[in-house]
């Protein structure tokens, strides 16, 4: 039992995944420990969202294993996978709220689908979840009436409705104003600690994520290029970590998309235009 407690909640080994010709992950090893906030960071297009979908079993890897709570996600039967998903929440970047239901019903949705609670208890539960994200007063609004930050908070309330063991956040800070960004940062930390969750935050917002993460993985080019606590990464002399954390335009991640030589390209310009 004790061993189980210390074993990582998510264990990824030798993960390979491709979209068409493009290799997204090429041998990723990664552990997500229980009770903490693990951040997965990297530039846009490194497949951070894809990683969450792989953990949730929505995509299948080419090779490698993903174990969640000791179960190999991609070996599970459909029923077992759905059982497992009840214990994990995924917060989509868009919120993915059901647009024909109001805020209350959106949060009530997983409860109505998976439990047979009496209406009064269900109401209490939904209001508790909404209170946790500060939107109890917005229960009658429709998703179209919410700001981006509010929609994400409603989605967060929905993600924790079934009291999951883990919540995965897909770019929670993107496109948020400073206030709602601050609110979300605090919420993620507070909910994680208060509910005893394990959180996975996928993001490229360095400061915000580093401020709440217990452990950070840096992904690039389909591989883990750096890992450690925010402190360790900040002190590391890895050119990659330094470029990413400081936001320098050029470095191991080149500023330029691969292209033929600049001068040559300009020289053939006049011919190229004709041909």
């Amino acid at each position: 039992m004790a061993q189980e407690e210390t074993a990582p909640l998510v264990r990824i080994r030798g993960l390979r995944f491709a979209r068409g010709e493009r290799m997204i992950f090429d041998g990723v090893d990664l552990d997500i420990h229980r009770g903490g906030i693990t951040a997965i960071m990297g530039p846009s297009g490194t497949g951070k969202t894809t990683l969450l979908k792989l953990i949730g079993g929505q995509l299948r890897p080419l090779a490698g294993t993903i174990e969640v709570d000791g179960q190999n996600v991609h070996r599970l039967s459909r029923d077992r996978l759905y059982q497992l998903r009840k214990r994990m929440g995924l917060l989509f970047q868009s919120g993915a709220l059901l647009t024909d239901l109001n805020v209350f019903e959106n949060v009530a949705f997983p409860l109505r689908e998976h439990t047979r609670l009496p209406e009064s208890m269900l109401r209490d539960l939904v209001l508790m979840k909404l209170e946790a994200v500060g939107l109890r007063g917005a229960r009658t609004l429709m998703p179209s009436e919410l700001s981006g930050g509010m929609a994400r908070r409603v989605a967060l309330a929905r993600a924790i409705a079934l009291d999951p063991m883990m919540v995965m956040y897909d770019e929670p800070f993107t496109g948020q104003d400073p206030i709602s960004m601050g609110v979300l940062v605090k919420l993620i930390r507070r909910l994680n600690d208060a509910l005893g969750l394990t959180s996975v935050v996928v993001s490229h917002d360095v400061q915000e994520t580093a401020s709440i993460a217990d452990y950070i993985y840096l992904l690039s080019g389909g591989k883990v290029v750096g890992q450690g606590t925010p402190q360790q990464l900040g002190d590391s002399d890895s050119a990659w970590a330094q470029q990413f954390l400081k936001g320098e335009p050029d470095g191991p991640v080149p500023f330029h998309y691969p292209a033929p030589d600049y001068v040559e390209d300009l020289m053939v310009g006049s011919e190229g235009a004709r041909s």
Partner: protein
Amino acid sequence: MILDWLQALGQRALSFFQRLGRGHITLYYLLIAIPSVLLRPRLLLQQIYSVGVLTLLIILVSGLFVGMVLGLQGYNTLVRFGAEQSLGTAVALTLLREMAPVVTALLFAGRAGSALTAEIGLMKTTEQLSGMEMMAVDPNKRILAPRFLAGVISMPLLSLIFGAVGIMGGYIVGVGLLGVDEGAFWSQMQANVDMREDIWNGIIKSMVFGVVATWIAIYEGNDATPTSEGVSRATTRTVVHTSLAVLGLNFILTALMFGD
């Protein structure tokens, strides 16, 4: 040059069969999800309302006008042979055997099918379906199958209503305006329209169309490229494919039912 052409041809053929395969996988999942829909009749009723009841108005209006045109044209032709007494039979048979199932299916594709595709396509684009999967709710059972069953149930009913209203339209024009004898209109119809041969065959047709039209609409929505352009293309494809499928199938069914 020829190689390029062959390659393009091969690619088209492959993508056609891939789509066909995905379409049948969708149908398989829809069919095995039906029992779970029956356990939640509220979901089904909601969908019958939005797929069936909301299509009712266009069916009523079109049925009436189609029936009136049939009455007018039928009268003009029959009167030349002194057979205007048979107008009731002509209108009823045309409607029940062909017009009601086919026109209903075409209108259904335009009104309900396109709406289904757009709705499901947008739910996919906005990650609502994906979100549901992650909440351990199977979108096949919660979203797709209730809509499928609602379409399959609604189509024959809409078709019957279309037929009935159409006959009323024929009656209004034939008897009301053109002076066909009322007794002859109804009694000839009663004598010559057969329950099994005409009415049931019409119902069977519209059941087949119901399955095909709703299946295409749901498949296209679920298979749409998750962009606004993708959804718009899928919606167009729903209407075009459903119309072609219905017209083609109608010929086959007619040949099988009334061919001898």
